């Protein structure tokens, strides 16, 4: 496998990384928002969000990507394929993240909230300075786990024509008629990426365990 093939692999890896990165960033914040909204228990919105989470967890990524890319133009929203891929990955990961944040929110001790109210802290200051750092520390391992699931599911975007790290091996093989080595190279690059995330997850777990009583 020569240098040109490796450069193509790195280009594909870059596509995977930037699309997954944006989806991860938006997905974590959206998941937190959904978990907070569900905690308020507003009647209709709560059932709709529960339905969304249940459907998003049961739908395969490939089907979701195709669904968004092909159906939204029918209602008038014409999405570029990068935007459609990011949207699909975000919708999927936000549902899983919402469950992770929800369990962290439910396990948060109420006495800290009462103590904050006793000294006159407003809800927003309490959330920003006391609740959020602890929530992040506690749910970081599960969130990093979900990040690695997203990267492992990102080859689904190949079906709408985005040349990610997996699809680029087809491209290389169509020129060199030698599919085995590009696939092994792509597998190696994925292992490096996920290996970094797994290391980050074990560091996060060690950091989270400090907080445990």
């Amino acid at each position, binding site marked *: 496998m020569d240098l040109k093939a490796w450069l193509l692999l790195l280009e594909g890896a870059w596509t995977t990384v930037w699309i997954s990165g944006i989806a991860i960033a938006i997905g974590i914040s959206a998941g937190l928002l959904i978990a907070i909204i569900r905690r308020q228990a507003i009647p209709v919105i709560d059932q709709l969000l529960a339905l969304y989470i*249940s*459907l998003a*967890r*049961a*739908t*395969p*990524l*490939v*089907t*979701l990507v*195709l*669904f968004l890319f*092909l*159906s939204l133009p*029918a*209602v008038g929203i014409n999405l570029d394929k990068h935007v459609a891929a990011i949207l699909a990955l975000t919708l999927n990961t936000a549902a899983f993240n919402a469950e992770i944040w929800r369990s962290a929110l439910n396990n948060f001790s109420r006495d800290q909230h009462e103590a904050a109210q006793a000294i006159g802290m407003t809800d927003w200051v309490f959330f920003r300075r006391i609740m959020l750092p602890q929530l992040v520390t506690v749910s970081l391992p599960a969130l990093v786990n979900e990040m690695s699931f997203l*990267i*492992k*599911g*990102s*080859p*689904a975007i*190949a*079906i709408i024509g985005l040349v990610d790290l*997996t699809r680029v*091996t*087809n491209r290389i*093989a169509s020129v060199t008629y*030698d*599919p*085995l080595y590009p*696939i*092994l190279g*792509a*597998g190696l690059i*994925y*292992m490096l990426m*996920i*290996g970094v995330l*797994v290391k980050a997850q074990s560091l996060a777990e060690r950091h989270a365990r400090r907080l445990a009583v």
Partner: protein
Amino acid sequence: MNEWSIIWQSREPFISGFLKTLQLFGISALLGLLLGVVLLYLLEGQSNWLRKGLGGFINVMRTVPFLILAYLIYYGLPQGGLRLSADLSGLIALTLYHGAYFSEILRGQRLVIPKGLVEAAQAHGFRHHLVFLRILLPNVFMSSLPLLGNQLIVCLKDTAFLCIITVREVTAAANSVQSTYFIPMKAFLVAILLYWIISLVIEYGIRYLTRFGKQRGFSHV
């Protein structure tokens, strides 16, 4: 013509796709669970290099996307002389990939089984393979049912990736129907509904097995 009637008229690819998905998921789930149990038994064994080798295999399966394994078997193996059909490659990829995950789940549960259980069995004269088969396996399996159920749903969703290596399952069927009749939203809604139905069946199955396990006393370990 009403779009739902178009979908009903072209139900043939949906039905065959649904059956293909059920076939792929069912066979790979059963074989994967079997592989997970076998890997767990081998990981209990004495030989060091076997344990390290299997641990390496499981680590690779956990850090590599499923599609890369499917690509490797479908596109990469013909270079070494072994040309498999898309369905068979998909089946082998699903079994190997999820077999590794199942064995990881079972191994995690095995680590929290109290040592006294195995020692009591050995004191009664159970030999190594019987301890595993009669004492460890039922307890480990029954107590890891929720995690196994989650992994089964992941296995179901991974069957959708196989449409990229040209297996005619539900997503491929929906894609072909929507590209023929230009009804993308309804075709994919039917596909999503079919996946949702299968995942509901899996969840009810796990719930039933959990209740069965409670009746037989597995929750006391």
